[in-house]
């Protein structure tokens, strides 16, 4: 049976960088795919018409290319079901989930399990990232071909980066056969040691063991070098320091196939937040200094940074409610990223809405070689509808995520999500957003 469900989004402001659209336009969805884009499209009988609220912005679906869904193994922190519910509530139509599960996603069985769970839930699309090495032990390559066949879109030993440069070279070369990027968490763990906070004045005064920026920069530099050597694409995850940005700039200038991402928290918070030892400011890479944050903002503006990704890292309350040095690293981000980025990046004028869509949709899709990132005719109708003027007060107790470990709790932010559409189906409508009722009715 052919799906011929027709939905028309009217009256919205459409932003689609790949098709150079940035203005008022209607969008017609037929059978889950974009069928037409333009002004004053004719409405055929049987079409569900959804009027986009005033100031509403219709974008290609946002893709968070760096999340931890914790399943299998750590279902007390998050599950695929709660993670994707958080994703769509945050305006993300797709997420790429890291392989540090238990067992590690280093074989097709785990990949299929994750994809099966995601299919059962049917909210956001889930793209598993496979381990680069068996058990993420950095000793021998995982069966990357089989991981690819099972649905992995990239490989990474996230959190435990491959220390051996030769093995990293081989991973880059091998993965390139499947057109998969290698995603690296840049950290020289022999230098980082047992550090828990950015090495600098604040950690010094608070007696917290330091994580020097150089530990990140050394590996960022190495990876750019290896990508240049092999010609294979490398994607550097959640960069936080000035020196790493220098390494990426240098690589891009030389034509190296390097891309990188930054998190909303590294674009908004610095290490002075550590006073008080709140473990919701403990993450790896750590919050760094104002000069780093300024460089990250510059790099977001000038295109050195390709994507914004949350590094959504759910942890249980009991785990975070501990001594600073024994609490686990990481904060969640799926349900705050859009508001934080609209409030801190778009409204102050650091980036345009068009650039934000590139950072959160177009570029992640192109780096991962997955559908989306565009609203061209014929593509799956994965759509994020933004409410840039919505007044949002972050309330972690209302999160869809199982976890509450956010540094943004209680923040008042300008901008949010009205609705999230995946494959032409409204999967989330924000009851708090003015004018979201037509989306709710269409669910």
């Amino acid at each position, binding site marked *: 049976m052919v799906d011929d469900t027709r939905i028309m989004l009217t009256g919205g402001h459409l932003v689609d960088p790949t098709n150079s659209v940035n203005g008022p336009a209607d969008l017609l969805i037929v059978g889950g795919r974009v069928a037409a884009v333009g002004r004053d499209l004719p409405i055929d009988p049987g079409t569900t018409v959804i009027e986009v609220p005033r100031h509403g912005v219709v974008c290609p679906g946002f893709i968070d290319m760096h999340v931890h869904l914790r399943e299998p193994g750590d279902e007390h922190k998050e599950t695929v079901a709660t993670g994707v519910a958080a994703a769509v509530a945050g305006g993300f139509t797709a997420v790429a989930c890291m392989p540090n599960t238990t067992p590690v996603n280093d074989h097709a069985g785990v990949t299929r399990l994750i994809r099966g769970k995601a299919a059962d839930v049917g909210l956001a699309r889930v793209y598993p990232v496979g381990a680069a090495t068996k058990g993420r032990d950095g000793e021998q390559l995982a069966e990357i071909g089989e991981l690819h066949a099972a649905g992995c879109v990239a490989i990474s030993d996230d959190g435990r980066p491959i220390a051996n440069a030769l093995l990293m070279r081989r991973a880059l070369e091998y993965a390139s056969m499947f057109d998969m990027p290698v995603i690296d968490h840049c950290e020289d763990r022999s230098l980082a040691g047992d550090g828990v906070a950015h090495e600098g*004045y604040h*950690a010094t*005064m*608070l007696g917290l063991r330091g994580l020097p920026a150089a530990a990140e920069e050394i590996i960022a530099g190495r990876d750019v070098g290896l990508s240049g050597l092999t010609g294979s694409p490398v994607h550097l995850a959640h960069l936080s320091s000035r020196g790493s940005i220098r390494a990426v700039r240098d690589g891009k200038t030389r034509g190296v196939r390097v891309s990188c991402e930054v998190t909303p928290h590294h674009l908004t918070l610095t290490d002075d937040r550590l006073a008080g030892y709140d473990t919701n400011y403990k993450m790896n890479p750590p919050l760094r200094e104002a000069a780093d944050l300024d460089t990250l903002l510059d790099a977001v503006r000038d295109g050195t940074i390709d994507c914004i990704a949350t590094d959504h890292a759910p942890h249980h309350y009991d785990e975070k409610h501990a*001594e*600073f040095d024994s609490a686990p690293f990481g904060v969640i981000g799926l349900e705050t990223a859009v508001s934080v980025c609209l409030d801190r990046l778009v409204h102050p004028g650091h980036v345009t809405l068009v650039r934000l869509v590139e950072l959160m949709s177009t570029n992640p899709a192109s780096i991962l070689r997955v559908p989306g990132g565009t609203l061209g005719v014929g593509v799956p109708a994965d759509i994020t509808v933004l409410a840039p003027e919505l007044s949002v007060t972050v309330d972690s107790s209302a999160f869809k995520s199982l976890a509450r470990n956010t540094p943004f709790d209680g923040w008042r932010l300008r901008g949010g999500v009205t609705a999230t559409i995946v494959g032409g189906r409204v999967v989330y409508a924000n009851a708090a957003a003015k004018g979201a009722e037509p989306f709710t009715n269409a669910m």
Partner: protein
Amino acid sequence: MPPIADVLTPDGLAAPVGLRTKDLLSIGDLLPEEIYLILDTAEAMKEVGTRSIKKVPALRGRTVVNLFFEASTRTRTSFEVAQKRLSADTINIAASGSSVVKGETLADTVRNLEAMAPDIIVVRHQSAGAGHLVARLCRARVINAGDGMHEHPTQALLDALTIRERKGTIKGLKVSIIGDLLHSRVLRSNVQLLQVLGADVSVCGPATMMLPDMARLGVRATTSIDEAVEGADVVMLLRIQLERMSGYFFPSLREYFQLFGMTPERLRRAKPDAIIMHPGPMNRGVEIASDVADGPYSVILEQVANGVAVRMAVLYLLADELQS
């Protein structure tokens, strides 16, 4: 505010003097006038220790818990003596290793204690900020008796009391702190306190044990011990924590002593009336030669005596807040 002596009579009642903050977690939380209040109160408390019956009723009926997650003889005993001299009901809990090892979280340990309604909890823990976590979880006043590499505020206060007794004032004195700077909570508390009190502080240690971003602390740093000692009024030595040294910080104890050990010869560069301090426990022949530790300039045992007085003062001032 009545004279301190009035509140120390056997039937004296505490007057509402005290500290602005609920807890004593960090020197940085104290205003200069609060630091002077603690030091002045401690001076008055010293007299109690000279009596034949060393006890005043200031903390009668108060329950004080000494919650020590890290081995300590001097500090725990000092707090306990201080508490007993103030007539507090004292409970000692020595948790071997971390609470995590025992299976109970620090938060749960503290919640359980809180349920028994202690008035003051003195906490020592191997993690920086542990006192902050404890303080957030309970109504009891919290005194930080050392949290990882962060701070040891009562140590700095007793050091300041000792210097002030010997030198009359701290303002303008040249104080040199020498040893393992990186891991030292005594250093972090002392640098802040001595700067507030107007001392000219310089620090010295191996380049491997310097503090990152030390320039922002406003202290002079050198790796030359001769330069550090030159003209010093006070030489404070920091313990080399043998258990923490992995061979990465310096090659051997022998070489450490050669380069940074305090010897009578090196001490000649200091002022003739310089005093030698050490927070203990000492490693004789590592950071300090026995001739120096036991020599005429050493005030190391005065520090210990003053520790009781300073802790009495802090306990008294925090407990006083409980009444108001």
